[in-house]
């Protein structure tokens, strides 16, 4: 509150506030407020006009009452009147009231806007500032609409005061944040960039904030800011700390501005110009040098400001990723911080190092700090810092130090916080896999992992071990042995039992020679754990038993005995019971040969992206290692054009360090492997706990009669019981079936994409939409899809209406548009998400925004998934977005037409087609169709009046294609001849195909 002290102070207000504060109870306070409100009302109602001072005073009181939490429904008019006052205090109170109290739909908004406009156009900088502050504080859409043009004008006007420029820049920034679409980008943008050269540092700071936001959106427009920013930065960095007077903060020159400039530079790749680049490098070096200097002050503000600039500089260095010396220096600097006493600094250092670790230049430098980081992991008190340490260890890990790091992480795991255990487990699993030199080490590590933190070992981790063991022949024996030994511990984690069951079931024979691990001992060992396990594990163990029957005929009797026991055959759990019954029958009636075929060893898994990695990515939010890696990868390709070196995804690139991809590349695809019959893969899967899916998937493959006889009912049953299996209801090829493993395993089965690939795409009504924009696209008993679309130039908007024809709800309704290669580069389709529930009889509208980037042939596909009753419906419809939709008709005279026609005489540019008429050859209908097709129908161009001639231009984002067409009907023969000439051959062909279908 301004000047409540003396002279201009509002005594009445001060008294009122002190009265309120002295109230003993809420009731007393309300009474006092009521009294004051009545007083103000009578004053406002009074016939004699109030002077500015009392108006200000009462408005202030109202504001105070409002801020106490009472409703104020009058006084707005008085506040608006204050805006036109010439006194600063009165105007200020008016603006204060307006920005706090007036909502956007008020009737007064016009008056307010008017007052603001007046102030903006006044010459008084104080008033202009007040008005700008009000716009920024309210920041509503209406404000943005009203002043989007004025604020930039003020910002770049030559005669604007510095303080006003500052406010204008920040006001524009705020408007840009709330309603970016309303801010026109115009010639002022280039002049904004030049504000970086302004004398006044405040203006520069404000402008930099604005430019950062704008540059993030359209970097090209602000490219010039780079050189200016570098120049400004170097001036700041090289200035003595006393040069900048007001802008020196605890001996640091303009820290905020420096940070902002460095941020701005992070929007762009390293400057091309060598001079600028050199200057920037110099700046960064100076900043790094300054960090080495002894602090000029012991105050924490000094070091905070200095470090802020330093960290921003480091992140710029990391962003550029092009100066090895700088990267190494940055890394060394961070290394010093690792042992700093400030927890925040340690945290930031670890975080920055994580990103540094993924740069090829500094990776080695980062690695030198491994001891410190491990120490931090062990001794750090703050859990968030420990978490960063884990991230960094993960990031700096490579083949040379993998063993050490994995060992350290494993040992830390025993004492780690519960919140980060699962993540550490995943990371250990990934590192162990990625940098494993020997498989024995890998298997040992994972088994250790399960032993130490069994509860936190997610499904993906142990799936992965099994995938690797199965894919790799030479580790199988060792794995079986190790697992067998591990299982002998009196208390095993359930995950270990799962791995053990699976591996012994597959490869138990490899260690059966040793009398200490004879088949019977193996079986008894597994069975001793059976009763302690949950149902899925038991199911897995049952599968392992039946595999034992195949592997070791000598224990067949024992196992049959177990399967036959009441606890199995009459188990309350359907899955267990069914397995027991089926396996028992299988073992009783099938011959050894059939058993051997059915219970064949699992085929190797085709390599995919490690499901563990996917899980880690899913689990972690922003700012984590995996994300960092992703963004880095992206950035690298953007900026340097080089790919990342440390990307952990094993499938993207056969990195030499990844033994897994090595071995998998070496492993032949499953179909090429010597297999007795393709159908023998029937029981390859049942060891997995998710076998229902496996069953369902496999049952689709060609089956032997035996399998159909014995277990096809069960597979159906299981398939029905599982929605994901039904979803995927595609007939996967036999080779495909095995490759589904990862998908089947990954916990949240990606239903939609799976379904997409499989559901037949419906295109029956597609051709109808070539010449019209509205109508019914698709209809069945449940659903009707209607379309309404409009196109302008290269943009289109499509309204899709989903009508529920039933009386029950559609649940989990989702509709998405898929553009396959190469369409996704040619057409942008933006889908607004639709409501997941469609009530019976109701209609749901979805809006698609379409942007044509270049000419295209295919049409996008609309995928619709929903649950109706118990079943999942899956519909794919081709969306009638065709190239001709982006036509703009062109009217032209006869001679123009023929002149252009001649210009497009290249044989590639012309496409001609002669075809038989499918419909009656009505002239009017034909005309309507040509107009509907999008071209202009040109009369009197062709000498033969029965011919049709059209012209138009196809608009895409990148190119525009002119198009001329000529249609010559031959009524006797019921034939048409269609000739199309466009500047692009592919366009001609596509248009010809589309149009010829119409007649």
């Amino acid at each position, binding site marked *: 509150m301004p000047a409540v002290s003396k002279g201009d102070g509002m005594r009445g207000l001060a008294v009122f506030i002190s009265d309120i504060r002295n109230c*003993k*109870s*809420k009731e007393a306070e309300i*009474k*006092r407020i*009521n*009294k004051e*409100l*009545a*007083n103000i*009302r*009578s004053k*406002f*109602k009074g016939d004699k006009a109030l002077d500015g001072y009392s108006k200000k005073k009462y408005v202030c009181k109202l504001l105070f009452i409002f801020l106490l939490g009472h409703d104020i*429904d*009058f006084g*707005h008019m008085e506040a608006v009147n204050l805006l036109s006052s010439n006194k600063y205090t009165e105007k200020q109170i008016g603006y204060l009231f307006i920005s706090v109290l007036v909502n956007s739909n*008020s*009737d*007064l908004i016009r008056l307010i806007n008017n007052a603001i406009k007046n102030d903006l156009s006044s010459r008084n900088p104080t008033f202009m500032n007040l008005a700008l502050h009000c716009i920024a504080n309210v920041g509503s859409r209406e404000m943005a609409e009203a002043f989007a043009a004025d604020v930039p004008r003020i910002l770049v006007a030559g005669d604007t005061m510095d303080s006003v420029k500052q406010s204008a820049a920040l006001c524009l920034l705020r408007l840009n944040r709330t309603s970016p679409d309303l801010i026109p980008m115009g010639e002022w943008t280039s002049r904004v960039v030049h504000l970086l050269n302004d004398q006044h540092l405040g203006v520069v700071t404000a402008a930099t904030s604005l430019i950062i936001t704008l540059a993030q959106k359209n970097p090209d427009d602000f490219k010039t800011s780079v050189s200016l920013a570098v120049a400004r930065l170097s001036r700041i960095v090289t200035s003595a700390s006393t040069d900048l007077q007001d802008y020196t903060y605890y001996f640091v020159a303009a820290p905020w501005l420096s940070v902002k400039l460095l941020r701005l530079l992070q929007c762009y790749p390293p400057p091309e110009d060598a001079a600028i680049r050199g200057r920037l490098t110099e700046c960064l070096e100076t900043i790094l040098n300054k960090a080495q200097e002894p602090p000029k002050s012991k105050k924490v503000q000094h070091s905070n400001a200095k470090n802020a600039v330093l960290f921003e500089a480091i992140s710029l260095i990391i962003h550029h990723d092009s100066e090895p010396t700088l990267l190494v220096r940055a890394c060394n600097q961070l290394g010093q911080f690792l042992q700093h006493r400030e927890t925040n600094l340690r945290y930031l250092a670890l975080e920055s190092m994580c990103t540094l670790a993924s740069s090829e230049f500094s990776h080695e430098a980062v690695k030198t700090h491994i001891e410190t980081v491990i120490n931090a992991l062990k001794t750090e008190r703050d859990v968030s810092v420990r978490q960063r340490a884990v991230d960094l260890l993960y990031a700096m890990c490579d083949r040379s130090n993998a063993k050490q790091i994995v060992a350290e992480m494993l040992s830390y795991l025993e004492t780690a916080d519960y919140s980060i255990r699962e993540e550490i487990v995943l990371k250990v699993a990934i590192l162990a896999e990625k940098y494993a030199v020997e498989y024995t080490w890998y298997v040992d590590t994972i088994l250790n992992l399960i032993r130490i933190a069994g509860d936190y070992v997610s499904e993906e981790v142990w799936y992965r071990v099994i995938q690797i063991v199965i894919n790799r022949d030479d580790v199988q024996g060792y794995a079986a042995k190790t697992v067998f030994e591990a299982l002998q511990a009196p208390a095993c984690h359930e995950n270990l039992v799962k791995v053990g069951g699976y591996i012994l079931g597959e490869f138990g024979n490899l260690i059966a020679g040793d009398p200490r691990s004879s088949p019977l001992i193996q079986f008894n060992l597994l069975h001793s754990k059976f009763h302690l396990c949950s149902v899925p594990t038991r199911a897995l163990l049952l599968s392992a038993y039946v595999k034992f029957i195949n592997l070791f005929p000598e224990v067949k009797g024992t196992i049959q005995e177990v399967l036959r026991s009441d606890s199995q055959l009459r188990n309350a759990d359907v899955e267990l019971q069914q397995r027991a019954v089926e396996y028992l029958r299988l073992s009783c009636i099938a011959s050894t040969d059939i058993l051997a075929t059915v219970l064949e060893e699992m085929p190797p898994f085709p390599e995919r992206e490690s499901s563990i990695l996917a899980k880690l990515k899913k689990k972690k939010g922003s700012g984590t290692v995996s994300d960092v890696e992703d963004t880095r990868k992206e950035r690298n390709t953007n900026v340097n054009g080089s790919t990342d070196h440390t990307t952990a995804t094993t499938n993207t690139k056969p990195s030499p360090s990844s033994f897994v991809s090595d071995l998998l590349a070496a492993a032949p695809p499953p179909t090429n492997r010597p297999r007795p019959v393709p159908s023998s893969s029937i029981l390859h899967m049942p060891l997995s706990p998710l076998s229902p899916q496996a069953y369902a998937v496999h049952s689709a493959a060609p089956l032997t009669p035996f399998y159909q006889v014995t277990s096809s009912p069960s597979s159906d049953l299981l398939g029905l019981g599982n929605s994901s299996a039904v979803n995927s209801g595609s007939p996967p090829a036999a080779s495909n079936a095995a490759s589904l493993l990862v998908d089947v395993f990954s916990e949240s089965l990606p239903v939609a994409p799976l379904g997409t690939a499989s559901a037949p795409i419906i295109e029956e009504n597609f051709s109808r939409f070539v010449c019209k924009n509205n109508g019914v696209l698709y209809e069945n008993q449940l659903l009707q899809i209607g379309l309404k679309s409009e196109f302008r130039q290269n943009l289109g908007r499509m309204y899709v209406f989903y009508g529920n024809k039933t009386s029950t709800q559609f649940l989990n309704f989702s509709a998405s548009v898929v553009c396959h290669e190469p369409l996704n580069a040619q057409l942008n389709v933006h889908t607004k998400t639709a409501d997941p529930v469609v009530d019976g009889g109701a209609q749901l509208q979805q809006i698609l925004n379409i942007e044509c980037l270049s000419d295209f042939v295919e049409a996008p596909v609309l995928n619709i998934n929903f649950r109706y009753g118990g079943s999942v419906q899956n519909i794919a419809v081709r969306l009638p977005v065709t190239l001709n939709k982006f036509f703009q008709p062109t009217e032209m005279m006869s001679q123009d037409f023929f002149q252009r026609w001649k210009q497009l005489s290249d044989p590639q540019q012309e496409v001609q087609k002669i075809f038989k008429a499918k419909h009656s050859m009505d002239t009017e209908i034909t005309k309507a169709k040509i107009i509907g097709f999008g071209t202009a129908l040109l009369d009197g161009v062709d000498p033969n009046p029965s011919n049709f001639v059209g012209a138009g231009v196809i608009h895409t984002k990148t190119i525009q294609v002119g198009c001329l067409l000529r249609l010559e009907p031959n009524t006797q023969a019921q034939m048409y001849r269609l000739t199309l000439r466009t500047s692009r051959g592919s366009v001609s062909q596509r248009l010809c195909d589309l149009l010829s279908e119409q007649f």
Partner: protein
Amino acid sequence: MIGGLFIYNHKGEVLISRVYRDDIGRNAVDAFRVNVIHARQQVRSPVTNIARTSFFHVKRSNIWLAAVTKQNVNAAMVFEFLYKMCDVMTAYFGKISEENIKNNFVLIYELLDEILDFGYPQNSETGALKTFITQQGIKSQLQTKEEQSQITSQVTGQIGWRREGIKYRRNELFLDVLESVNLLMSPQGQVLSAHVSGRVVMKSYLSGMPECKFGMNDKIVIDKQGKGGTTDEAGKSSGKQSIAIDDCTFHQCVRLSKFDSERSISFIPPDGEYELMRYRTTKDIILPFRVIPLVREVGRTKLEVKVVIKSNFKPSLLAQKIEVRIPTPLNTSGVQVICMKGKAKYKASENAIVWKIKRMAGMKESQISAEIELLPTNDKKKWARPPISMNFEVPFAPSGLKVRYLKVFEPKLNYSDHDVIKWVRYIGRSGIYETRC
């Protein structure tokens, strides 16, 4: 089983804190302050559950009394106790205010020790308490052992509310029938709801251990007598004056068994002041005043209000302390009032016109008219028109209750019913007496 009892001032500072059971922790004090006293929204419910702990509170002016428990207690019992606690404190040091509580905190702790034992309410009879908890301090040398043992035997004995050996030169009895009428009436004069809640308060200064019997025109008793009586006519005439009591509660001295069997109210009274019974009636209520409102909106900026009140009782009786409260809209900017009788004033702090009349005889009427100027607001909300409320005091019982007799027997001492001087008084007050407009 009350776990603890806290008394707070209006700021939420703890004045008295007494914990009876271990299950109530220290933080319970703060929990109540944070969640009830300082709550953002005003807490309306008198019972609040915070973290499996129940807080029962009553508010006396600016003082909060809160009983805390973790058990599933009888809430009615807890509130009865809290009210009793208020009565006891008032009897000891007058008005319950922060100052008084601070000045008497030793006394309050002493009282709390006495009237609650391990959370179970004990004797809360002021008369009895005053014999052994005094503000002066007990001078032990003056008090004989005999007296001490007498107190013990009295407090623990069958008639805990009266000690033996009381002697008065003049045996006197005061009986007040205090009633409050509650009414909600439609603008057209239709009674939407009405009830009377009454109390019979006695002050007895009687010697010895007298046995009293109290009779009133209770419908059940009269009807029974009418049936048992000789003529139907007698029953009819008395039935006219009898009242139907919906429910009643008695002081602990009343013999409930006798009331249940014979419906007669007999008791050995405590010494001094006490509340003999409480009752409630809903039928045949005499409404002392009728309010006739007339509200007219003239345009958007003016409101004309005319209110007529009519007194509806015997012309010989005088009503007192009449106050009519006419609510005004929230955007009132000025009020002009004209009234024939009494004084009327616009009270901005209460958003109401308050019209006060000192005295008014029965079967009269009076009128007030007011012009209210309104300030136009942006808000489209319509004024909710709260009801017009009224306060008054009349010298009769609006329920129609009549005291038929109050007999005193003292077989041991030599005074009879006729020797006792008895005073009876009726006071009818307004409770929530509202008329919609």
